[in-house]
């Protein structure tokens, strides 16, 4: 305490203290001199020992902690002066640091928003969800009946809510229909209490608002929906919102931060689950009690209960459920399935996100690349610093001679580095705010399959500058500053003691090895960028088996209320025919799932003549319901048999058309037409076109060519097509294929308008060309290709700066030598070759080290590549050639300078 006060006092009374110190030292000196004279020494001799007070004063100052603060401040000011005095160096270094830091910060911000944020609710750590693993299927959802049984576990759960999220696009506010899709959260009345969120305006609904089926037309809005649709009206409670035939009263608005439990897919409003039948009018009666498996439970543990205890309780209930399911006489298949099933209690404090798993690998790749870029930046700035501290040799030598300790000089140089890093960090922060917006834009586009229809699926996340982003940037800048600063500072603070040829040679070696490291790391980034961009190109230009330029896909959802759903069959008849009549349209037809919708559908098992082909996922068969002439519209060739026609209706024998892949797998060379095939799925609880096909037999009437069907990466999945009239209950969505005479793009609006004319209540989710559809599915690939391209470019630029700096520096160091060479008759071209050759040797060493490293690194991304090997020689050659070309360009200017050295001046300057 005493120490702190005294320290502060002396910090503020700096001048006075210094005077006192001087006076005391002078007094000491005088007495010492008097003493020595008294003992008979000469005055001159007596004074010698105390020639300088300065080191004494310095060490006196150092005795107190405040001196550290003070000298740090001095170091900071000195550092700032040095940086200002060399604006070119400072700008180049700070900018390159800014790029490195911004890359990391912006990727961190997206990573943080998607993965690391806890739900903005009270005590999110007590929230859990239940995850079923049954065979190969994993699901968060279960039936309402099961949910009720888990909810009854009130010895471990404080309470449990059930959620079912649905897309709707028939909401009316003030008599105006909202064309956009809205995400409706149908939740039990206790949802807000369970999740721990309160309304910002008005109130949320509670358990008492969710008692009688159909009796609670109330709605709670999200902040975003409130702003967008109700214009942020603060007196919104009491206003109305219409969905299907029901009018709902607004109860309140949630806080801005709260958008439900789905991260990246915010809920627009919440309605009590007792209104399910009114919201999802297309479902059969009593949807809540019925067998629907779409309820996601969200449970809150009692505060005194551990996850393990709750898990045990949950397992018991799950076993009971299975026992009832199996009944008295279970089949061996059911028993096998029961054995493979379990229920896990999964923490939900970070919410759910379907995109999390999908994006974790790309984000990991980007984090590593950004880290590499930052390392390159560090090597680069370290190199610039070495060249620069070498220029300050004299200053540092003087300071050492004047009694400045090595530690002090080390600190001074480190402070300068940190200052530079802080500057880079501040700039980087500005870049990052912009870059994370752009990055989200790249992640955000792209469709996803939802409940049978396609929806443009933006990853809706909010990224803004906040304390987390600031903290990350600050920490990163600090680490960066230490990383690039420590080696040059350490060298400078001691290296200059051992001057001479040895020191110079070592300095050169250090700079060169940093450069080689930089080249090697840059090469890895460049090779990665080349591989990813080739992957994107391959995926985008691959042969789809379709005509991509003359085909439009119009996606509609038929699950938008009973009025539309009841007409599904009629719409399947009507819409393609009407669109086919549009001028410029050659033909048109429809299917339920369409193609290139990116969904991960489970597929069904198939068997021929009782010989099943099950097990692995890729042996599952995908199915779709189509109108006649579907293949004609897609230009898929019929290889055998016939197309569907008007005869294939509900009363006719059940028929299928299979694709080539299936035909090959099941029938080999023999002709499948006329053969019978069984489809069935015991394990799958998902709704697939045609539903659970257990034990149903079909006659194959045709074989059609393969195409890229669902996702751009799966080439020949086995497919079956069925006539839509034979399964009207599963017409949940409709993808209309429109084949145009000319380019498809300009027809988009016409198609959209025509669908609206046919039925204004039919929501058109998306109309796009096959090309665009494909491109939308390649969001991840494009994200990685774009960013890794950017990182590669930045790395090349940095290598350019680094090489320029290094070569300039070494040319400056060797001016004399070069002067002598020229004086004794070296040709200037020879000097040019000498300097460039040295540069190329450095780059060559970097490449020699980088290639094996890249070969190892690319193995980790093998799964991300398509149509290109991890050791693709073209990518490697291009990367190496680009780096070498850039290196020669960077070295050219200083090399020319070296070649034009005037021997007279060079020798005179010695």
């Amino acid at each position: 305490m005493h120490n702190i006060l005294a320290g502060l006092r002396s910090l503020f009374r700096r001048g006075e203290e210094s005077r006192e110190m001087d006076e005391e030292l002078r007094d000491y000196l005088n007495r010492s001199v008097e003493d020595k004279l008294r003992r008979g020494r000469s005055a001159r001799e007596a004074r010698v020992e105390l020639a300088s007070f300065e080191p004494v004063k310095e060490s006196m100052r150092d005795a107190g902690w405040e001196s550290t603060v003070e000298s740090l401040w001095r170091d900071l000011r000195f550092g700032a002066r040095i940086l200002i005095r060399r604006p070119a160096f400072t700008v180049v270094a700070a900018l390159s640091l800014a790029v490195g830091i911004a890359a990391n910060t912006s990727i961190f911000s997206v990573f943080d928003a998607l993965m690391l944020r806890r739900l903005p609710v009270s005590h999110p750590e007590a929230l859990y969800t239940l995850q079923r693993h049954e065979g190969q299927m994993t699901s968060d959802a279960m039936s309402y009946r099961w949910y009720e049984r888990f909810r009854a576990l009130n010895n471990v759960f404080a309470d449990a809510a059930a959620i079912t999220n649905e897309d709707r696009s028939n909401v009316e506010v003030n008599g105006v229909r909202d064309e956009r899709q809205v995400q409706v959260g149908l939740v039990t009345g206790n949802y807000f209490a369970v999740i721990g969120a309160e309304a910002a305006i008005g109130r949320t609904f509670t358990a008492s608002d969710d008692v009688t089926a159909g009796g609670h037309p109330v709605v709670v809005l999200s902040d975003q929906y409130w702003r967008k649709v109700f214009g942020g009206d603060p007196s919104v409670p009491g206003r109305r919102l219409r969905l299907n035939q029901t009018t709902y009263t607004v109860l309140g608005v949630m806080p801005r931060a709260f958008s439900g439990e789905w991260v990246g897919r915010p809920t627009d409003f919440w309605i009590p689950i007792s209104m399910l039948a009114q919201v999802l009018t297309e479902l059969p009666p009593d949807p809540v009690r019925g067998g629907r498996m779409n309820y996601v439970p969200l449970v809150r543990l009692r505060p005194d209960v551990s996850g393990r205890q709750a898990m045990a309780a949950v397992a018991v209930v799950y076993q009971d459920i299975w026992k009832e399911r199996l009944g008295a006489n279970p089949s061996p298949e059911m028993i096998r399935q029961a054995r493979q099933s379990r229920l896990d209690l999964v923490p939900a404090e970070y919410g759910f996100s379907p995109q999390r798993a999908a994006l974790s690998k790309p984000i990991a790749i980007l984090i590593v690349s950004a880290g590499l870029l930052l390392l390159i930046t560090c090597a680069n700035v370290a190199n610039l610093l070495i060249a620069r501290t070498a220029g300050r040799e004299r200053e540092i030598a003087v300071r050492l001679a004047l009694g400045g300790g090595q530690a002090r000089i080390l600190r001074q140089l480190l402070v300068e580095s940190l200052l530079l890093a802080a500057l880079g960090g501040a700039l980087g922060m500005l870049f990052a705010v912009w870059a994370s917006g752009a990055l989200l834009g790249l992640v955000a586009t792209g469709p996803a399959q939802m409940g049978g229809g396609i929806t443009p699926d933006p990853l809706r996340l909010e990224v803004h500058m906040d304390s987390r982003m600031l903290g990350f940037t600050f920490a990163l800048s600090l680490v960066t500053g230490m990383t690039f600063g420590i080696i040059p500072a350490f060298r400078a603070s001691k290296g200059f003691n051992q001057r001479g040829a040895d020191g110079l040679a070592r300095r050169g070696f250090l700079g060169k090895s940093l450069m080689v490291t930089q080249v090697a790391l840059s090469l890895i980034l460049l090779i990665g960028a080349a591989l990813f961009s080739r992957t994107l190109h391959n995926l985008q230009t691959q042969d789809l088996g379709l005509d991509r330029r003359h085909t439009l896909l119009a996606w509609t959802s038929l699950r938008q209320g009973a009025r539309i759903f009841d007409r599904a069959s009629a719409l399947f008849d009507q819409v393609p025919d009407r669109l086919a009549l549009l001028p410029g349209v050659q033909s048109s037809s429809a299917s339920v799932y369409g193609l290139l919708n990116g969904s991960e559908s489970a597929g069904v098992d198939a068997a021929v003549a009782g010989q099943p082909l099950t097990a692995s996922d890729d042996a599952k068969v995908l199915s779709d319901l189509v109108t006649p002439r579907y293949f004609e519209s897609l230009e898929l060739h019929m290889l055998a048999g016939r197309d569907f026609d008007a005869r294939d209706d509900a009363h006719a024998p059940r028929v299928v058309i299979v694709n080539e892949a299936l035909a090959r797998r099941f029938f080999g060379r023999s002709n499948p037409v006329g053969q019978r095939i069984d489809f069935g799925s015991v394990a799958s609880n998902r709704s697939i076109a045609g539903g659970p096909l257990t034990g149903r037999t079909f006659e194959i009437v045709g074989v059609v060519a393969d195409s890229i069907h669902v996702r751009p990466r799966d080439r020949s999945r086995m497919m079956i097509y069925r006539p839509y009239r034979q399964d009207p209950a599963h017409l949940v969505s409709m993808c209309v294929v429109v084949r145009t005479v000319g380019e498809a793009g300009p027809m988009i609006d016409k198609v959209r308008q025509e669908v609206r004319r046919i039925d204004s209540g039919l929501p058109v989710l998306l109309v796009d060309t096959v090309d665009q559809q494909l491109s939308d599915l390649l969001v991840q690939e494009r994200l990685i290709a774009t960013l890794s391209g950017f990182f590669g470019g930045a790395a090349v630029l940095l290598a350019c700066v680094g090489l320029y700096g290094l070569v300039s520096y070494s040319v400056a160091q060797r001016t004399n030598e070069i002067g002598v060479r020229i004086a004794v008759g070296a040709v200037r071209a020879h000097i040019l070759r000498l300097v460039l050759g040295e540069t190329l040797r450095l780059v060559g060493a970097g490449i020699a080290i980088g290639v094996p490293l890249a070969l190892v690194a690319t193995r980790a991304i093998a799964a991300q590549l398509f149509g290109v090997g991890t050791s693709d020689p073209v990518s490697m050659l291009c990367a190496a050639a680009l780096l070498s070309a850039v290196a020669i360009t960077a070295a050219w200017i200083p090399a020319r300078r070296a070649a034009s050295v005037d021997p007279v001046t060079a020798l005179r300057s010695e």
Partner: protein
Amino acid sequence: MGLVQGTLDMLILKTLALQPLHSYGIGTRIQQISTGVFEVGPGSLFPALRRLERSGLIRAKWKTSDHNRRARYYGLTDSGREKLESETREWERQTAAIARILREGSHA
């Protein structure tokens, strides 16, 4: 002869236990008492004084003294006195122990 780190602090405290002294006085006194074994230069004396002052063991005052000369006189504070006593005890305990060890060693 060099001093063990911390020993100088103790010697200064001991010197000041008798009477307040100025810096030069402290240096010469230590030299005298140790009959010239310890020579304390300004380079170590001043930082030590500063350190002691900062931790509140000694206190300095400007005084006008002999021959009308202003000098900074250092004196012990109460905590300085306590520190000296405890340090002295500790020192004696340690030196006795070391002496014993050295004696034992020589018999072996």
